[in-house]
């Protein structure tokens, strides 16, 4: 019997499969396709203190084995989440993690503080890496100091598990991860999207209203696995890997590279049951290889 139970420090997951913020709505969008309670957990879309309209259309371009997006954190704000969404998902028997984003340090902290009283929200994921907002977002994620200051501010007001999501658009992701860890992160998730761009050469204009956007999907997986491997060898807190995971084999790559858990992102757009397929695939792999617990292979590279 395979036991997929996964511990991220204080946070217990029934299996290592989470969903990436911004690819799974509030979970409810996928309830027709899967039983949400089968997941290790799901991370709801980037939530900010104030509502945000996001960037203008067009926001999406498909690229080879990937996609660019420029959503720009469209969301109805943390109050909407607390009042309208939380009651619908609070009682699910799975971890519901809120992705917290912002443009200013105070906004991150205020947002986290508002979430702190919510029973059942055992973790937030701090998005210091969104490439699609002009201020904040990725700016905090590209220097150790910037990262540290946001994490410290949120650490003061958020009492439970604090996951920090890093940008890959840096020279040394390990330095940023160490800064997040020293500032009190309980886990590190990576990678957010790579900054990219595409042009419609027939129309001679950018594919995105914002010109540049975030690249995700299978195309980025090799970069993501590399960064997860580098970071997990250098921090003590658990690492959550994401970037192009579509199959159980993809998920296992991240786990062997050192990830304690993984997030499924773009694949949710292609196959709404991707998460459950991956959970089943990991179980099947473990049975075939006589693995009782993922600790046997985690970080084996």
């Amino acid at each position, binding site marked *: 019997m395979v036991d997929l139970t996964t511990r991220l420090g204080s946070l217990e997951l029934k299996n290592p499969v989470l969903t990436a913020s*911004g*690819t*799974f*709505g509030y979970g409810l*969008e*996928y309830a*027709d*396709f899967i039983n949400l309670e089968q997941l290790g957990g799901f991370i709801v*879309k980037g939530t900010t203190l104030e509502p945000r*309209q*996001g960037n*203008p*259309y*067009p*926001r*999406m*371009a*498909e690229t080879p*084995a*990937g*996609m660019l*997006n420029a*959503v720009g954190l*469209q969301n109805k704000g943390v109050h909407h989440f607390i009042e309208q969404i939380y009651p619908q998902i609070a009682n699910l028997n799975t971890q519901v993690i809120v992705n917290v984003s912002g443009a200013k340090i105070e906004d991150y902290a205020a947002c986290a503080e508002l979430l702190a009283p919510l029973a059942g929200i055992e973790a937030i994921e701090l998005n210091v890496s969104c490439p699609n907002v002009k201020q904040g977002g990725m700016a905090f994620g590209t220097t150790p100091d910037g990262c540290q200051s946001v994490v410290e501010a949120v650490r003061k007001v958020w009492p439970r598990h604090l996951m920090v999501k890093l940008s890959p658009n840096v020279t040394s992701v390990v330095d940023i991860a160490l800064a997040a860890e020293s500032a009190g992160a309980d886990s590190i998730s990576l990678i957010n999207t790579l900054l990219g761009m595409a042009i419609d050469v027939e129309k001679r204009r950018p594919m995105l209203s914002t010109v540049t956007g975030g690249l995700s*999907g*299978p195309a980025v997986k090799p970069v993501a696995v590399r960064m997860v491997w580098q970071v997990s060898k250098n921090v003590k807190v658990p690492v959550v890997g994401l970037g192009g995971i579509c199959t159980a084999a993809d998920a296992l790559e991240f786990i062997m590279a050192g990830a304690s858990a993984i997030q499924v992102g*773009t694949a*949710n*757009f*292609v*196959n*709404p*049951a991707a998460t459950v397929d991956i959970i089943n695939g990991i179980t099947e792999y473990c049975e075939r290889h006589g693995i009782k617990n993922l600790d046997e292979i985690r970080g084996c590279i």
Partner: protein
Amino acid sequence: MVPLNEQKPVKKQQLDLRVRSNELLPSGLLHLCLENALGAEMPAMLPGQFVEVAVDKANVLLNRPYSIYNCTSDSLELLVAPLGRASIALQKYIKGEHLRVIAPLGHGFSTEFNTTDKVLLIGGGVGIAPLYYQARTLREKGVNVEVVYGSRTNPDARITDRFKAIAPLHICTDDGSAGFKGLVTQHPVTQACEYNFAQVCGPQKMMESLHKFVSAHNINAEFSLENKMACGLGACLCCVENTTAGNVCVCTSGPVFNYKELTW
């Protein structure tokens, strides 16, 4: 938001469908007829809703949204303009091959009308596709409906015959090779305004000019949009339309919008 006639949400499903027929029509449009590979009934779908198709042969990452040309208890028909990489690859699917389809998706056209209502369906190019299923549905409900179909050139009899069998069809062509020579907006039936509800699907430019027209004449209308989308489920937030209620997802709040919601 101006609500569309209320639509009970239909459960979304991933379906394993099999190609029953796949034919390239003389106009260049592709007519694809799918059946449930498991022999089960096709789930109920509403006119104006759409489906997402995984076009494996196209070597693309994302599924592609196509409107529903027709749907019965055992078949789903699509009418596709093979212009992009995925839709071109759709031509390669032959009878018996499988396609993974997510359906039904989105909010369709209003279908509840009074006997005194007169509905005009206006389609341009491949935008005619969802209007057949809508016309059929309205006729089955006894609604008074006519159709204006704009096409660059003489449209496929295979398409027009189906419409003619259920409702008066008015054809416009850019080149005058059939019907009225001119744009759907200029067609006498459109201009006469002897209808109190228009339902429209077609190229952006055509829809914008019709939007102006119905607004000026105070005719209630619905428009079916086709913004680029990644998921079709309301998760990716890529297909947004800037409506009176702000940015909303075309895939879930639409693809059909009341004209008053649109900020064109």
